[in-house]
């Protein structure tokens, strides 16, 4: 499968297989006019299978939040056809208005327009907890 190399943009590599669409939605890539390639289930020595996203434009991205969605990804910044930077992402200490608390007893279920704030409770186990009720956030 051939996908053209990009001139100015990003190659988001080492995405967990199956998670590329989540990143696609978060980065609002559907709203871009430039070329965007999503490559799924690429063979990887390290991960077995991985996804890759290529974006042919240097868009503004909140990399911290991307670190929340998938902290294992690497971001290659491409300028004039060459890689000029390789970013390793980290899980942010706090995430605001990205996910919602699922505890039915939490104040965020009833209080209008309250920010949904989560803090990183355990970096090793990748656990985020609600700032208000301390319930762990579970994906899915």
């Amino acid at each position: 499968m051939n996908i053209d190399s990009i001139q100015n943009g990003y190659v988001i590599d080492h995405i967990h297989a199956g998670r590329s669409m989540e990143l696609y939605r978060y980065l609002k890539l559907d709203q871009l006019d430039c070329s965007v390639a999503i490559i799924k289930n690429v063979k990887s020595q390290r991960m077995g299978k991985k996804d890759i996203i290529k974006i042919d434009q240097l868009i503004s991205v909140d990399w911290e939040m991307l670190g929340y969605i998938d902290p294992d990804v690497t971001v290659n910044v491409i300028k004039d056809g060459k890689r000029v930077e390789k970013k390793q992402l980290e899980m942010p200490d706090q995430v605001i208005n990205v996910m919602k608390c699922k505890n039915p007893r939490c104040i965020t279920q009833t209080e209008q327009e309250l920010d949904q704030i989560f803090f990183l409770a355990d970096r090793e186990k990748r656990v985020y907890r609600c700032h208000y009720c301390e319930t762990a956030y579970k994906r899915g």
Partner: protein
Amino acid sequence: MPRHLLNITDLSMEEIDELMDQADDIMKTPEKYQDCMRHKKLATLFFEPSTRTRLSFEAAMMELGGNVLGFSEASSSSATKGESVCDTVRTVACYADIIAMRHPKEGAPMAAASVCPVPIINAGDGGHNHPTQTLTDLLTIRKEKGRLNQLVVGLCGDLQFGRTVHSLMSAMCRYKSIRFVLISPKELSVPEYLRENLQRDKVSFTEVERLEDVIGTLDILYMTRVQRERFFNEADYVRLKDSYILDTEKMAMARKDLCVMHPLPRVNEISRSVDSDPRACYFKQMLYGKFIREALLMKLLEVKA
């Protein structure tokens, strides 16, 4: 930014010691403090019923010479018209110097504190936290046992939704040589985040289902009520409500210096026959609650005697 009390860990161990010393002094010489809150107002916003917490807060403020306003049920506030918690406290902050708030939703006092220009005290938020009960509990333990370290603390009953248990564990984790014995049915065991905190802080704990098996090893037995209001399913409540009943037979297996505590109200988890046992400390615990709340009000309003 005003100083709030939302979680017991908002206070350092030194500050808790100071509060307990202050409470002791208020107990000994109440006349010294009788006017220190003159012209100050406490608002008690209770969106959920309470007897001890609300009345002890109000009595505390009155004994310090201050005044009290507020409501004791959500139905008598604009919450019934759909007013948000944040707007309610913005309003009340115009009329009071400090707010004690109880709410059935977890984290409600924290949400309120984010917009409130006066100190907010969490007087219980759903099944989450109850830091002023913990201050009461710590003062009780210090007075009855003479120390807050080197203790085997049994927590019995509803450990899942028991906010007093959650706050007490968070507080006692910080003292040396504490061992927790967590006694509950599996369905009502402590929330995962507390178990993780115990493991992280390397605090010794065991989880068991039978009180009889461990009561003889305890320095403190903290009983709790299985709370009907925390269940979405009545059948689950009925199945679990009588899991533990402390009676004279079980007390006979306990040590002579055991201290039995309960945040109250109780339903049937402590038999009335235990009340006359000198090891029953739960009525003294209520009294201590008023003095420690006096000390807390003074601290948050930066008032001296």
